[in-house]
């Protein structure tokens, strides 16, 4: 007798809960009608950022292409008139990319960054091969401050020898004074 009461009670509570939810606002977010903002650190489409002065951050050092486990990054480095090393062309094959983020981790200049933007499906597979003009953006991405050439001791328009962060004036090589 007791068991039967318990069973009916449980059923009643269950149905009551279901009935109650019939009148609640749904919490499911309908994609693509609603696009939820993802955390900044989520890993999707890759961009090439610029430093705070607006110049390209990428120095085409080949570290991202070296670390890439699926070899989807290729580039050609070259030298600018002002002595900066830059990528003559830079290509990422997103058909191959696994969005692991190792390139971002390897990048010594904060140039290559992954963004939350994940909607980059294409019908034509060649359209997934992004060239530099598709990758380069006009902002700093997640790193708002860093300008590599302010720290590296090579002469560019950012600073001559001895003008970078924590540098002495260049040595006078024609003197023997310590």
């Amino acid at each position, binding site marked *: 007798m007791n068991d039967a009461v318990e069973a009916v009670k449980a059923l009643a509570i269950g149905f009551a809960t279901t009935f109650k939810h019939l009148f609640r606002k749904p919490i499911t977010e309908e994609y693509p009608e609603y696009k939820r903002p993802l955390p900044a650190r989520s890993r999707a489409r890759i961009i090439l950022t610029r430093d705070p002065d607006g110049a390209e951050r990428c120095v085409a050092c080949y570290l991202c292409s*070296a670390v890439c486990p699926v070899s989807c990054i290729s580039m*050609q480095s070259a030298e600018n008139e002002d002595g900066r090393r830059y990528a003559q062309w830079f*290509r990422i094959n997103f058909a191959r990319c696994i969005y692991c983020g190792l390139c971002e981790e390897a990048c010594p200049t904060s140039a290559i960054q992954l963004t939350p933007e994940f909607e980059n499906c294409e019908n034509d597979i060649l359209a997934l091969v992004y*060239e530099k003009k598709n990758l380069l953006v006009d902002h700093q991405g997640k790193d708002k401050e860093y300008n590599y050439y302010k720290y*590296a001791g090579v002469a560019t328009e950012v600073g001559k*020898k001895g003008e970078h962060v*924590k540098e002495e004036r260049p*040595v006078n090589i024609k003197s023997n004074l310590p």
Partner: protein
Amino acid sequence: MPTIIIDDREIEVAPGTKVIEAAEQLGIMIPRFCYHPALGSVGACRVCAVKFLQGPFKGVQMSCMVDAQDDMVVSTTDKEAVAFRKYVIECLMLHHPHDCPVCDAGGHCLLQDMTVSGGHGIRRYLGKKRTYPDQYLGPLIQHEMNRCIHCYRCSRFYQDFGGYHDLGAMQSANQTYFGRFEEGILESPFSGNLIDICPTGVYTDKPSRYFGRRWDYERSPSLCINCSLGCQTVVSCRYRKVVRQEARLSESVNGHFICDRGRYGFFYNSLAQRPRSCIVDDQTTSVDQALAAVKQKLETFADKDRAQAVACAGSTRNSLETLAMVKHVCQTNRWQPPAYFEDAAATYKLKSAISRLEPDLTVSLREIESADFIAVLGADPLNEAPMLALALRQAQRKGATVAVFDPRPIFLPFEFKHLPANLDMIQTDLGALLNAALEPAALKKLDGSAREFYASLATVKQISAARQAEIVALAELLKASQRPIIVCGTEMVRRQTPALAADYALLMQAAGKSVGLFYVMPGANGFAAGLLADEDVSVETLIAGIEKGSIKMLILVESNPLWQFPDRHRLEQALQQLEVLVVMDYINSEVAQKADIFLPTTTLYETGGVYVNQEGRAQGVKPAYQGGIPIAQTGHGDHPPRVYGTEIPGAEPQAAWQLLAHLIGTGQPLTAEDLRAEIWQWLAKIDSGFKALPCVADIQPQGARFFQAPHAAERFLRERPIGGADNDGQLEVMAVEMTFGTEELSADSACLKALAGSPVIFMYSSDAKQLNLTDGDRVSVELNGGAVEARLQVTANMAAGMLIIPRHKDLDWQKMNTDKTFVHKDQIRKLKD
């Protein structure tokens, strides 16, 4: 033989071996910056510290400064030593500019490796960094002094090893600087080695600046074909382009280093103007169609009598496979015998040199370093074979005397004795030296012909009075010498000189000296071409045939006579008279542009090949990459074309020997591998010395020394030119090779063009005085074929009665007409500036 224990492992080493070398023999790489096997130890960097646990002394010591001795027990992993090395690395990194991402050494940087492996990952020093200004060091080397760790390798190589003094240490203490006093182009033609030996990125390669990383390069062992020495190299390819060439350690040829001509002589391979498609009558066609066109033309000459109207020429830059195939095609099709050289004298000189290279006389380039007296006869080491000059320098550093018998204004980066005389007198002078140096007692042992030869040598009294004292002084040194070596040129010298050099060597050998003989030859494969050449056939005889009308069709295989032939006008006329001119080449040579049918061929880097250097060392090379148009060219400076494809663009060219095989018979041509095997078999029939070659083609690191099959070479020449004839106020003109700019392949390298400079004509000081000319005057010299103009350089450091003209591109030296020509003194005029 001391026995030493390193990390619980025992090894017996030769006396004088440093602990760091002993460890290396065990396979233990002790960190090092300043130590280099070729440069020795200085103990400057302190990074090779190890702990000595037992033995003559104990504690942390520099392993590069301590000789391995008995009872020594060494630990490389002792806590104290590891901590010591870690602090040293941290100190070396205090002022490092942290610019690895934009440094071309990144990826193969010793400092990077040591920093990481030494455990110094986080920077603790918060003070300011020292900085240095950089210098312009010429078109080959980029300078970035901030990265320097003061190991002194550069100045030790440049000054001590190389013998040049315009780069070295300046300033003092913590501000020591390595560079030039005034910035400018480095004088040493070995400067490129600074890039290889610098343990970090102070000196980096300028032509390949910012091109890529070492880990991305397809690297493979290769060979330098810019002179006859055949130095071993490593080439780096990337994106279908040869990017860099570095020295490969070779114990028998070049040691650790190569010269700049070799290092930067590969750019012809990836030039935009390199021909990559066949051209028939100015129309681009496929290889098959072009071959069909050649065959169709050949059909006219199919019958026996007409076949002689076809001639074929190779050159000394052909691989052995191509050289052999050229000869094979000519023989099979009954064409004229092939020509490999400009004139018959060159063939004769090479043939006599090759036949005189006996096993117990021949020395390798590295063996020159152990000589104690070196007589250079008719060769200009720095200009004809630059690495020879570096080898001579090493011998001289060890105390050898170097005497150069040559009319040219010779410069060598060390102290040597130059005895300039004209081409007849140089051998007389050397004969007189031998005459004075050999003890009469030793000569009693000589057999008949040797004694006769000795008796015919000039005595010291017979040579010019001014020279006598020098010869007598040298004779004293030669008398005391145990290991004399004769280095002999084969290009400029008289017909008998190479054979005479061998006779001189034999004479010294008979007198009890352990003597060596070393020839310098023209071109990378001059030895093999000399072996295969027919004695009386040369480009000159082909031209004569064309002029007579007996030759109507000419096939030039990787050969450009317009570059080298001394009578340009005559050659151009002859080429026009031809009915058909077929050219196969991998450079866009002048003669290729005149061809009726042009077929592109592949380079050494694309198909490999065997090259025989001047001592007869056959060295094989495998392809470095697959060929095709560089991506930089297909992309026109931007990204590669966005197309899918399985074929390599611009990969149509085939090896010259493969193309030639199509011209034999009508059957299906063999595969490349079978064809190669057939070539070796066929070569072995010509000379049994070639039997060892198939193994060379599989790359033996040291190659295989080729000796001509036993033969009866004529020893001890009887007829010898005795020089000294007065030229009646005439000057003998000599067109000579320079380090940069006169060698055909390296002349295509843009970075070497600045080093070639503008042409100068050299004249002896008293000759110039007679003509009222001074150094720096612009002069016009009336040669047989017209006037040439250049600036005059007056020097006392050359033979009188000579006019030395470099075979510079900007100078019409090919107006000479013959290779031996005289100008009368009034044919030289001073021009207004």
